[in-house]
């Protein structure tokens, strides 16, 4: 008997025994599905997935972008942090670096993210709350005090005013005597997902896209090791999308940025290697792993086949992952450590380049130092104790994971097709298409949870009568006042003539659509013009986006 026949007779035998058992013991639910409503079969076997032989470090990179992956170096453990004043955040950064963290990740407060100074009326109550308050270069100097910028890579979650904060980072580098080409890090700089999901936009789409391509161009010439954008699905997922939508909308936005840059005259291989991605990791373990693998494959194909990029670096989807904030519960917060562990494991199995693990108390407030340490330790345990990083893509070849990767690729491509028909991501955002899709899914999730069709441990099942209140981080309310005073004294001390000159040069150039604004912004931050002042000049020229 040939091996094939043996195989199929065993399969028949298996199926017979299953149908007998099902008569007596029905299954827990019908059907089983992933978060993206992909049906999960009872069993996957060699018939389920086409075997696609592929190797890590080789196109289309399904199994990872490097030939050796974590055997040479673990992913970068990069914990997002920032609160209160620059000096306070600097202390937390130095603590995290001492604890073995390998990269910095800066959270800015909302006024900074939306281009308001701390003393702006709109900033009331928000200064230093969800991140560090940065008004002028002085704050940036305090933030990065004693942190050598030639040795540490820094990721900055900044979008609408990304150019301003990047220039401040460059200016601190200059003061430290670090050459520009040695600066490494990432700015998020992804405005499309702000319109879609995160809400910290300032200008309308068109001038925003211009600022982004200005950054691409400037960095390619002068700051070649800086990742100029982190195209983010993270917030799309947090806003309520499923895994397929997260990947699809992110890739669609990526396509829009590539189109804009090419249109502005850049060669695809000049900027594409510096594009980075940022994904979420939620609870459905295998679906998340498959999402990362499918996204890599899709991006490689788009860059190579559609854009004809020649440099293999342009084909590689490099990404940062953060575990899912919206999966955390305020109830029984210690359970969140377990959720984060599973999500982090999915990111590692999916081949992430860097990772942020959330802290257990983030459904309640910003993390305390204890919680932030446990979150970092979670990554260190996965890296050093579990052995999962000792071979490349350990789930590759799993019938289920390969089948799911294929199926997700197909579903993501369906969405990409649809967005293309609408006229691309910018058009789809302006029409509110993605926003509607996400909201619809978020509402469905909420209803399923309330009907207990979806179980969240500690929330709608396995509840405790009495919840213990953990210690939470409090941001000192006096900080806002201190920050405003500091800003106002800088305004008094600085060379106001130089500031006025730099700002009016910026204004002039903003009127010229072909001009690159980065050199003007750099001049302005060097003489301590504030984030708000620079953004206000641009507001006057570009107008403001007011939502749909």
């Amino acid at each position: 008997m040939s091996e094939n026949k043996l195989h199929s007779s065993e399969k028949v035998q298996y199926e017979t025994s299953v149908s007998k058992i099902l008569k007596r013991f029905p299954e827990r639910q019908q059907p089983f599905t992933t978060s993206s409503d992909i049906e999960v079969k009872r069993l996957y076997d060699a018939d389920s997935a086409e075997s696609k032989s592929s190797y890590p470090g080789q196109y289309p990179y399904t199994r990872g972008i490097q030939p050796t992956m974590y055997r040479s170096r673990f992913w970068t453990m990069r914990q997002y942090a920032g609160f209160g004043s620059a000096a306070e955040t600097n202390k937390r950064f130095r603590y995290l670096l001492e604890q073995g963290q390998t990269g910095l990740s800066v959270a800015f407060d909302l006024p900074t993210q939306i281009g308001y100074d701390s003393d702006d009326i709109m900033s009331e109550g928000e200064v230093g709350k969800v991140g560090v308050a940065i008004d002028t270069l002085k704050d940036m100097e305090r933030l990065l005090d004693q942190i050598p910028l030639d040795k540490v890579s820094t990721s900055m979650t900044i979008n609408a005013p990304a150019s301003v904060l990047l220039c401040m980072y460059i200016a601190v580098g200059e003061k430290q005597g670090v050459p520009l080409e040695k600066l490494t890090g990432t700015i998020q700089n992804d405005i499309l997902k702000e319109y879609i999901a995160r809400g910290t936009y300032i200008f309308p789409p068109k001038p925003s896209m211009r600022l982004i391509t200005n950054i691409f161009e400037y960095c390619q010439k002068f700051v070649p090791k800086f990742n100029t954008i982190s195209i983010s699905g993270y917030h799309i997922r947090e806003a309520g999308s499923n895994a397929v939508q997260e990947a699809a909308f992110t890739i669609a936005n990526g396509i829009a940025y590539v189109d804009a840059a090419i249109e502005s005259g850049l060669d695809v291989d000049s900027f594409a290697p510096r594009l980075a991605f940022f994904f979420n990791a939620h609870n459905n373990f295998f679906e998340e792993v498959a999402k990362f693998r499918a996204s890599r494959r899709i991006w490689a194909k788009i860059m190579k086949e559609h854009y004809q990029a020649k440099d293999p670096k342009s084909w590689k989807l490099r990404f940062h992952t953060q575990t899912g904030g919206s999966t955390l519960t305020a109830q029984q917060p210690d359970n969140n450590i377990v959720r984060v562990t599973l999500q982090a494991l999915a990111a590692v199995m999916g081949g992430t380049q860097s990772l942020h693990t959330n802290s257990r108390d983030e459904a309640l407030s910003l993390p305390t130092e204890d919680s932030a340490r446990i979150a970092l330790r979670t990554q260190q345990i996965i890296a050093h104790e579990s052995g999962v990083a000792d071979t490349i893509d350990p789930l590759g070849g799993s019938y289920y994971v390969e089948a799911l990767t294929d199926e997700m690729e197909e579903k993501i491509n369906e969405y990409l097709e649809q967005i293309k028909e609408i006229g691309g991501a910018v058009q789809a955002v302006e029409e509110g298409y993605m926003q509607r899709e996400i909201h619809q899914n978020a509402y469905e999730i909420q209803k399923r949870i309330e009907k207990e069709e979806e179980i969240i441990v500690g929330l709608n099942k396995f509840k405790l009568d009495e919840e213990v209140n953990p210690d939470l981080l409090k941001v000192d309310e006096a900080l806002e006042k201190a920050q405003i005073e500091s800003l106002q004294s800088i305004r008094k001390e600085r060379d106001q003539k130089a500031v006025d000159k730099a700002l009016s040069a910026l204004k002039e150039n903003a009127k010229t659509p072909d001009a690159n604004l980065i050199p003007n912004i750099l001049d302005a931050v060097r003489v301590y013009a504030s984030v708000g002042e620079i953004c206000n000049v641009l507001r006057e020229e570009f107008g403001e986006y007011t939502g749909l």
Partner: protein
Amino acid sequence: MVRKIRVLVAKPGLDGHDRGALIIAQALRDHGMEVIYTGLRQSPAQIAQAAVQEDVDVIGLSSLSGAHRTLFPKVLEELKHRDAIDIPVIGGGVIPSEDIPYLIDQGIRKIFTSGSSTEVLADYIQELIDPKTKPIEKPKKIAHIGIAVENIDNSLSFYTDALGLELEAVEQVETEGVKVAFINLGESRLELLEPLNDTSPIRRFLDKKGEGIHHIALEVDDIKTRLEQLIKQGVKVINEKPKPGANNSQIAFIHPKAASGVLFEICQHEKSDN
């Protein structure tokens, strides 16, 4: 026609997380309310202004950025300036429980934190604004007391002969595997329950505890609404939906764990009182 409850859902401050606000807006619409959503980045003055202009019955504030301690009371202040402080304000988002007493003290009516159900929120608003629309009538009386017995014929004489009560009828409820003797007692009844077979719940009760009081049944007006309300309040029930009981009634059992070990039935009889 009854005027719909009008709700203003607002995002004060710079916070861009509106997943919760949007879900709540839609859920309240699904509950028949009219919802106005302000969109992002509203100042307290803009929110108060919109509330007055739109003539809303209640304002819901959502904040996830930690600015609630400053911004929520500011909204109240702005309402005061506009003589509109009678509009109740509720809040939600990422709000540490230790901040809740402060906000309540400032005049916020209630805070719904992460994990609250939209059902509970909708009911709260309904109660707050228009408590008369959906009052649930209290249970009216004890409809009957069920007594488990091995054999009706053997037990009956105590009730009919010794106490002199009247046997109204004997009925078999096949679905429950039980034979029931109805004995009238004032505005209530006693029901003697005899198992018809080995799988009858009465059989199991007798095996476990012997003869004795099995359950107490409460007469309600609207069993469906009452049952929904119990489930919503987290009371453990045995039957999630009413089922047909003896004597043309709809019944449902509440789990004894919810009532100190007493098995309660709620029942609703057909309106034909004759």
